[in-house]
Protein backbone atom coordinates (compact mmCIF):
# COMPACT_ATOMS: atom_id res chain seq x y z
CA UNK A 1 0.00 0.00 0.00
CA UNK A 2 1.96 2.96 -1.33
CA UNK A 3 -0.01 5.63 0.58
CA UNK A 4 0.71 4.02 3.94
CA UNK A 5 4.36 3.53 3.02
CA UNK A 6 4.68 7.16 2.05
CA UNK A 7 2.94 8.28 5.22
CA UNK A 8 5.07 6.25 7.60
CA UNK A 9 8.28 6.80 5.65
CA UNK A 10 7.98 10.56 5.82
CA UNK A 11 6.58 10.54 9.33
CA UNK A 12 9.87 8.93 10.30
CA UNK A 13 11.76 11.70 8.50
CA UNK A 14 9.66 14.35 10.25
CA UNK A 15 10.22 12.79 13.67
CA UNK A 16 13.96 12.37 13.53
CA UNK A 17 15.16 15.20 11.35
CA UNK A 18 16.93 17.36 13.90
CA UNK A 19 19.13 20.30 13.10
CA UNK A 20 17.73 21.60 9.85
CA UNK A 21 17.68 20.39 6.31
CA UNK A 22 21.30 19.39 5.89
CA UNK A 23 21.09 17.12 8.88
CA UNK A 24 17.95 15.60 7.41
CA UNK A 25 19.30 14.72 3.98
CA UNK A 26 21.09 11.52 5.05
CA UNK A 27 17.90 10.41 6.81
CA UNK A 28 15.75 11.16 3.78
CA UNK A 29 18.23 9.30 1.57
CA UNK A 30 18.03 6.31 3.84
CA UNK A 31 14.21 6.23 3.80
CA UNK A 32 13.83 6.96 0.08
CA UNK A 33 16.41 4.38 -1.00
CA UNK A 34 15.21 1.68 1.39
CA UNK A 35 11.69 1.87 -0.05
CA UNK A 36 13.17 2.06 -3.55
CA UNK A 37 11.24 5.21 -4.42
CA UNK A 38 14.09 6.96 -6.22
CA UNK A 39 17.56 5.88 -7.27
CA UNK A 40 20.64 7.72 -6.09
CA UNK A 41 20.97 9.88 -9.18
CA UNK A 42 17.34 11.00 -9.23
CA UNK A 43 17.62 11.81 -5.54
CA UNK A 44 20.73 13.99 -5.99
CA UNK A 45 19.01 15.86 -8.79
CA UNK A 46 15.95 16.32 -6.60
CA UNK A 47 18.01 17.61 -3.69
CA UNK A 48 19.46 20.25 -6.02
CA UNK A 49 15.95 21.30 -7.08
CA UNK A 50 14.74 21.36 -3.46
CA UNK A 51 17.63 23.57 -2.46
CA UNK A 52 16.90 26.02 -5.25
CA UNK A 53 13.15 26.32 -4.97
CA UNK A 54 11.51 28.16 -2.08
CA UNK A 55 10.43 26.33 1.03
CA UNK A 56 12.03 23.90 3.46
CA UNK A 57 14.11 21.27 1.66
CA UNK A 58 12.52 18.46 3.64
CA UNK A 59 9.02 19.49 2.65
CA UNK A 60 10.03 19.94 -0.98
CA UNK A 61 11.57 16.47 -1.11
CA UNK A 62 8.48 14.93 0.48
CA UNK A 63 6.20 16.62 -2.05
CA UNK A 64 8.38 15.50 -4.94
CA UNK A 65 8.79 11.89 -3.85
CA UNK A 66 5.09 11.62 -3.00
CA UNK A 67 4.06 13.02 -6.34
CA UNK A 68 6.47 10.84 -8.29
CA UNK A 69 5.20 7.71 -6.53
CA UNK A 70 1.47 8.30 -6.29
CA UNK A 71 0.43 11.58 -7.92
CA UNK A 72 -1.38 14.34 -6.10
CA UNK A 73 -2.71 12.19 -3.23
CA UNK A 74 0.81 10.87 -2.68
CA UNK A 75 2.22 14.39 -2.61
CA UNK A 76 -0.40 15.52 -0.07
CA UNK A 77 0.14 12.47 2.15
CA UNK A 78 3.95 12.68 2.14
CA UNK A 79 3.94 16.43 2.80
CA UNK A 80 1.44 16.12 5.65
CA UNK A 81 3.46 13.31 7.20
CA UNK A 82 6.73 15.23 7.14
CA UNK A 83 5.15 18.36 8.66
CA UNK A 84 2.97 16.65 11.28
CA UNK A 85 5.59 15.82 13.95
CA UNK A 86 7.05 19.34 14.16
CA UNK A 87 3.57 20.84 14.12
CA UNK A 88 2.47 18.73 17.08
CA UNK A 89 5.71 19.18 19.01
CA UNK A 90 5.55 22.97 18.70
CA UNK A 91 1.89 23.03 19.72
CA UNK A 92 2.81 21.09 22.82
CA UNK A 93 5.85 23.23 23.59
CA UNK A 94 3.96 26.50 23.04
CA UNK A 95 1.17 25.39 25.35
CA UNK A 96 3.60 24.87 28.24
CA UNK A 97 6.21 27.42 27.19
CA UNK A 98 4.96 30.39 29.20
CA UNK A 99 5.13 28.57 32.52
CA UNK A 100 8.25 26.65 31.62
CA UNK A 101 10.21 29.75 30.63
CA UNK A 102 10.25 31.09 34.17
CA UNK A 103 11.94 28.01 35.53
CA UNK A 104 15.50 28.74 36.60
CA UNK A 105 17.17 25.81 34.91
CA UNK A 106 15.18 26.27 31.71
CA UNK A 107 16.43 29.86 31.75
CA UNK A 108 19.98 28.61 32.18
CA UNK A 109 19.66 26.13 29.30
CA UNK A 110 18.21 28.81 27.04
CA UNK A 111 20.97 31.17 28.15
CA UNK A 112 23.47 28.66 26.80
CA UNK A 113 21.54 27.77 23.66
CA UNK A 114 20.86 31.30 22.43
CA UNK A 115 24.45 32.51 22.03
CA UNK A 116 25.39 29.11 20.61
CA UNK A 117 22.58 29.43 18.06
CA UNK A 118 23.74 32.93 17.14
CA UNK A 119 27.27 31.61 16.64
CA UNK A 120 26.07 28.70 14.50
CA UNK A 121 23.95 30.94 12.30
CA UNK A 122 26.75 33.48 11.86
CA UNK A 123 29.16 30.70 10.93
CA UNK A 124 26.64 29.22 8.49
CA UNK A 125 26.30 32.61 6.79
CA UNK A 126 30.06 33.09 6.56
CA UNK A 127 30.62 29.53 5.31
CA UNK A 128 27.93 29.98 2.70
CA UNK A 129 29.36 33.28 1.47
CA UNK A 130 32.86 31.77 1.27
CA UNK A 131 31.41 28.74 -0.54
CA UNK A 132 29.60 30.98 -3.02
CA UNK A 133 32.86 32.70 -3.90
CA UNK A 134 34.20 29.47 -5.35
CA UNK A 135 31.20 28.91 -7.60
CA UNK A 136 28.33 26.47 -7.42
CA UNK A 137 30.23 23.17 -7.55
CA UNK A 138 31.87 23.03 -4.16
CA UNK A 139 29.94 24.02 -1.12
CA UNK A 140 31.83 25.20 1.93
CA UNK A 141 35.22 24.39 0.54
CA UNK A 142 37.46 27.40 0.34
CA UNK A 143 39.91 26.99 -2.47
CA UNK A 144 41.50 30.31 -3.26
CA UNK A 145 42.93 29.55 -6.72
CA UNK A 146 39.48 28.71 -8.12
CA UNK A 147 37.63 31.87 -7.11
CA UNK A 148 34.61 32.33 -9.36
CA UNK A 149 34.82 35.83 -10.85
CA UNK A 150 31.12 36.38 -11.78
CA UNK A 151 30.13 35.34 -8.25
CA UNK A 152 32.59 37.83 -6.76
CA UNK A 153 31.19 40.58 -8.99
CA UNK A 154 27.62 39.67 -8.12
CA UNK A 155 28.40 39.57 -4.43
CA UNK A 156 30.07 42.98 -4.57
CA UNK A 157 27.10 44.44 -6.49
CA UNK A 158 24.54 42.97 -4.10
CA UNK A 159 26.53 43.97 -1.04
CA UNK A 160 26.86 47.50 -2.45
CA UNK A 161 23.12 47.75 -3.10
CA UNK A 162 22.29 46.49 0.40
CA UNK A 163 24.66 48.97 2.05
CA UNK A 164 23.53 51.88 -0.13
CA UNK A 165 19.86 51.27 0.62
CA UNK A 166 20.59 51.02 4.32
CA UNK A 167 22.52 54.31 4.25
CA UNK A 168 20.07 56.27 2.09
CA UNK A 169 16.72 54.98 3.33
CA UNK A 170 17.90 54.36 6.90
CA UNK A 171 16.15 51.01 6.60
CA UNK A 172 17.28 47.59 5.51
CA UNK A 173 16.13 46.25 2.17
CA UNK A 174 13.44 43.68 2.94
CA UNK A 175 14.50 40.02 2.51
CA UNK A 176 11.96 39.50 -0.27
CA UNK A 177 13.26 42.45 -2.28
CA UNK A 178 16.80 41.20 -1.66
CA UNK A 179 15.88 37.80 -3.14
CA UNK A 180 14.25 39.37 -6.20
CA UNK A 181 17.19 41.73 -6.81
CA UNK A 182 19.67 38.84 -6.50
CA UNK A 183 17.70 36.69 -8.95
CA UNK A 184 17.74 39.47 -11.55
CA UNK A 185 21.43 40.15 -10.91
CA UNK A 186 22.08 36.42 -11.31
CA UNK A 187 20.37 36.30 -14.70
CA UNK A 188 22.35 39.33 -15.88
CA UNK A 189 25.80 38.61 -14.42
CA UNK A 190 25.93 34.86 -15.06
CA UNK A 191 24.19 35.37 -18.41
CA UNK A 192 27.09 37.44 -19.68
CA UNK A 193 29.79 35.76 -17.61
Amino acid at each position, binding site marked *: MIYLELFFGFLRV*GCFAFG*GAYGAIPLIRDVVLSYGWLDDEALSCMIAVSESTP*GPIMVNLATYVGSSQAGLPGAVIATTAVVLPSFLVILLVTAVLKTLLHHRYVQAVLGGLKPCMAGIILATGVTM*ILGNLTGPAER*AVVDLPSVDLPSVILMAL*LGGILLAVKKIRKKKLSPITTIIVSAVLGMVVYGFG
Partner: protein
Amino acid sequence: MKQQRILFDLLLTFLKIGLFTFGGGYAMISMIGDSCVEKKKWITQDDMMNITVIAESTPGPIAINCATFVGYQQAGFAGALTATLGIVLPSFLIIYAISMFFDHFLEITVIANAFRGIRIAVGFLILDAGLTMKKKMPRKLLPQAILGGSFAAMLLIGIFSWNFSSISLMLLAAAVRLAVCAIEERNAGKGGVKP
Protein backbone atom coordinates in the same frame (compact mmCIF):
# COMPACT_ATOMS: atom_id res chain seq x y z
CA MET B 1 -15.11 38.48 12.58
CA LYS B 2 -11.91 39.72 14.20
CA GLN B 3 -10.68 36.13 14.38
CA GLN B 4 -11.29 35.73 10.65
CA ARG B 5 -9.26 38.85 9.88
CA ILE B 6 -6.35 37.61 11.94
CA LEU B 7 -6.47 34.21 10.26
CA PHE B 8 -6.54 35.78 6.81
CA ASP B 9 -3.62 38.03 7.73
CA LEU B 10 -1.65 35.03 9.02
CA LEU B 11 -2.36 33.05 5.86
CA LEU B 12 -1.29 35.89 3.59
CA THR B 13 1.87 36.70 5.54
CA PHE B 14 3.04 33.10 5.67
CA LEU B 15 2.19 32.46 2.02
CA LYS B 16 4.52 35.34 1.22
CA ILE B 17 7.24 34.00 3.51
CA GLY B 18 6.83 30.51 2.08
CA LEU B 19 7.11 31.79 -1.47
CA PHE B 20 10.34 33.68 -0.90
CA THR B 21 12.27 31.43 1.42
CA PHE B 22 15.18 29.94 -0.38
CA GLY B 23 18.04 27.98 1.06
CA GLY B 24 16.52 26.39 4.14
CA GLY B 25 15.76 27.43 7.66
CA TYR B 26 18.33 30.01 8.66
CA ALA B 27 17.45 32.31 5.77
CA MET B 28 13.84 31.97 6.91
CA ILE B 29 14.72 33.52 10.28
CA SER B 30 15.60 36.77 8.57
CA MET B 31 12.34 36.66 6.61
CA ILE B 32 10.13 35.87 9.62
CA GLY B 33 11.93 38.50 11.69
CA ASP B 34 11.18 41.12 9.05
CA SER B 35 7.48 40.23 8.75
CA CYS B 36 6.45 39.09 12.23
CA VAL B 37 8.72 41.14 14.48
CA GLU B 38 9.30 44.41 12.63
CA LYS B 39 6.26 44.88 10.39
CA LYS B 40 3.38 43.09 12.12
CA LYS B 41 4.77 43.16 15.66
CA TRP B 42 3.18 39.78 16.34
CA ILE B 43 6.13 38.57 18.40
CA THR B 44 9.18 40.20 20.00
CA GLN B 45 12.81 39.66 19.02
CA ASP B 46 13.23 37.67 22.23
CA ASP B 47 10.29 35.42 21.31
CA MET B 48 11.93 34.97 17.95
CA MET B 49 15.16 33.86 19.56
CA ASN B 50 13.39 31.49 21.93
CA ILE B 51 11.52 29.87 19.09
CA THR B 52 14.65 29.57 16.95
CA VAL B 53 16.34 27.69 19.75
CA ILE B 54 13.29 25.50 20.32
CA ALA B 55 12.89 24.91 16.60
CA GLU B 56 16.48 23.82 16.31
CA SER B 57 16.19 21.44 19.27
CA THR B 58 12.97 19.83 18.06
CA PRO B 59 12.64 17.78 14.90
CA GLY B 60 11.39 19.27 11.68
CA PRO B 61 12.11 22.26 9.49
CA ILE B 62 12.65 25.53 11.40
CA ALA B 63 10.24 27.28 9.05
CA ILE B 64 7.37 25.00 10.04
CA ASN B 65 8.17 25.33 13.72
CA CYS B 66 8.24 29.13 13.54
CA ALA B 67 5.00 29.33 11.58
CA THR B 68 3.21 27.02 14.00
CA PHE B 69 4.47 29.05 16.97
CA VAL B 70 3.52 32.47 15.61
CA GLY B 71 0.12 31.21 14.42
CA TYR B 72 -0.63 29.69 17.81
CA GLN B 73 0.35 32.88 19.61
CA GLN B 74 -1.96 34.94 17.44
CA ALA B 75 -5.03 32.75 17.13
CA GLY B 76 -4.67 29.44 18.94
CA PHE B 77 -4.96 26.11 17.16
CA ALA B 78 -6.72 27.55 14.11
CA GLY B 79 -3.96 30.13 13.81
CA ALA B 80 -1.24 27.49 14.05
CA LEU B 81 -2.95 25.44 11.35
CA THR B 82 -3.44 28.45 9.07
CA ALA B 83 0.13 29.72 9.37
CA THR B 84 1.60 26.24 8.81
CA LEU B 85 -0.60 25.70 5.79
CA GLY B 86 0.39 29.11 4.47
CA ILE B 87 4.09 28.43 4.69
CA VAL B 88 3.87 24.96 3.11
CA LEU B 89 1.46 25.73 0.28
CA PRO B 90 3.70 27.76 -2.09
CA SER B 91 6.53 25.24 -2.14
CA PHE B 92 4.04 22.39 -2.37
CA LEU B 93 2.47 23.84 -5.50
CA ILE B 94 5.82 24.75 -7.06
CA ILE B 95 7.36 21.34 -6.44
CA TYR B 96 4.23 19.58 -7.59
CA ALA B 97 4.30 21.55 -10.84
CA ILE B 98 8.01 20.83 -11.30
CA SER B 99 7.53 17.12 -10.73
CA MET B 100 4.69 17.09 -13.25
CA PHE B 101 6.04 19.24 -16.06
CA PHE B 102 9.74 20.00 -15.85
CA ASP B 103 12.02 17.02 -15.80
CA HIS B 104 15.12 19.06 -16.40
CA PHE B 105 14.16 22.13 -14.46
CA LEU B 106 17.66 23.21 -13.48
CA GLU B 107 19.03 22.74 -16.99
CA ILE B 108 17.19 25.85 -18.19
CA THR B 109 20.02 28.40 -18.20
CA VAL B 110 18.08 31.50 -17.17
CA ILE B 111 16.54 29.70 -14.20
CA ALA B 112 19.86 28.21 -13.12
CA ASN B 113 21.46 31.67 -13.30
CA ALA B 114 18.69 33.25 -11.24
CA PHE B 115 19.10 30.54 -8.59
CA ARG B 116 22.85 31.07 -8.45
CA GLY B 117 22.12 34.75 -7.80
CA ILE B 118 19.65 33.84 -5.07
CA ARG B 119 22.24 31.62 -3.37
CA ILE B 120 24.41 34.69 -2.91
CA ALA B 121 21.54 36.64 -1.35
CA VAL B 122 20.78 33.72 0.97
CA GLY B 123 24.31 33.93 2.37
CA PHE B 124 23.76 37.60 3.19
CA LEU B 125 20.32 36.94 4.72
CA ILE B 126 21.69 34.24 7.02
CA LEU B 127 24.57 36.49 8.06
CA ASP B 128 22.07 39.26 8.79
CA ALA B 129 19.93 36.95 10.94
CA GLY B 130 23.05 35.98 12.88
CA LEU B 131 24.12 39.60 13.39
CA THR B 132 20.65 40.57 14.63
CA MET B 133 20.82 37.77 17.21
CA LYS B 134 24.35 38.73 18.21
CA LYS B 135 23.23 42.30 18.92
CA LYS B 136 20.63 41.01 21.39
CA MET B 137 23.14 39.01 23.42
CA PRO B 138 24.00 40.33 26.86
CA ARG B 139 27.47 41.86 26.95
CA LYS B 140 28.74 39.45 29.57
CA LEU B 141 31.67 37.11 29.45
CA LEU B 142 29.86 33.77 29.32
CA PRO B 143 27.33 34.41 26.53
CA GLN B 144 29.96 36.15 24.40
CA ALA B 145 32.40 33.29 24.97
CA ILE B 146 29.78 30.69 24.00
CA LEU B 147 28.91 32.73 20.92
CA GLY B 148 32.53 33.09 19.85
CA GLY B 149 33.32 29.47 20.59
CA SER B 150 30.41 28.03 18.69
CA PHE B 151 31.07 30.42 15.80
CA ALA B 152 34.67 29.26 15.52
CA ALA B 153 33.74 25.60 15.94
CA MET B 154 30.98 25.75 13.33
CA LEU B 155 33.22 27.61 10.89
CA LEU B 156 35.90 24.93 11.16
CA ILE B 157 33.27 22.20 10.82
CA GLY B 158 31.93 23.88 7.68
CA ILE B 159 35.29 24.53 6.05
CA PHE B 160 36.70 21.07 6.66
CA SER B 161 33.36 19.28 6.20
CA TRP B 162 33.73 17.51 9.53
CA ASN B 163 30.99 15.20 10.60
CA PHE B 164 29.84 16.99 13.74
CA SER B 165 26.27 18.14 13.97
CA SER B 166 25.11 21.51 15.26
CA ILE B 167 22.90 19.63 17.72
CA SER B 168 25.93 18.28 19.58
CA LEU B 169 27.34 21.79 19.72
CA MET B 170 24.10 23.11 21.19
CA LEU B 171 23.96 20.33 23.77
CA LEU B 172 27.49 21.23 24.79
CA ALA B 173 26.62 24.93 25.16
CA ALA B 174 23.54 24.12 27.23
CA ALA B 175 25.58 21.81 29.46
CA VAL B 176 28.25 24.46 30.01
CA ARG B 177 25.70 27.12 30.90
CA LEU B 178 23.84 24.74 33.20
CA ALA B 179 27.05 23.74 34.97
CA VAL B 180 28.00 27.40 35.52
CA CYS B 181 24.53 28.05 36.87
CA ALA B 182 24.82 25.14 39.31
CA ILE B 183 28.27 26.25 40.49
CA GLU B 184 27.07 29.82 40.98
CA GLU B 185 24.17 28.57 43.02
CA ARG B 186 26.36 26.39 45.22
CA ASN B 187 28.75 29.24 45.84
CA ALA B 188 25.85 31.54 46.60
CA GLY B 189 24.53 28.93 49.01
CA LYS B 190 27.88 28.70 50.81
CA GLY B 191 28.66 32.40 51.01
CA GLY B 192 25.08 33.45 51.42
CA VAL B 193 25.48 36.01 48.64
CA LYS B 194 22.79 36.09 46.02
CA PRO B 195 23.86 37.39 42.63
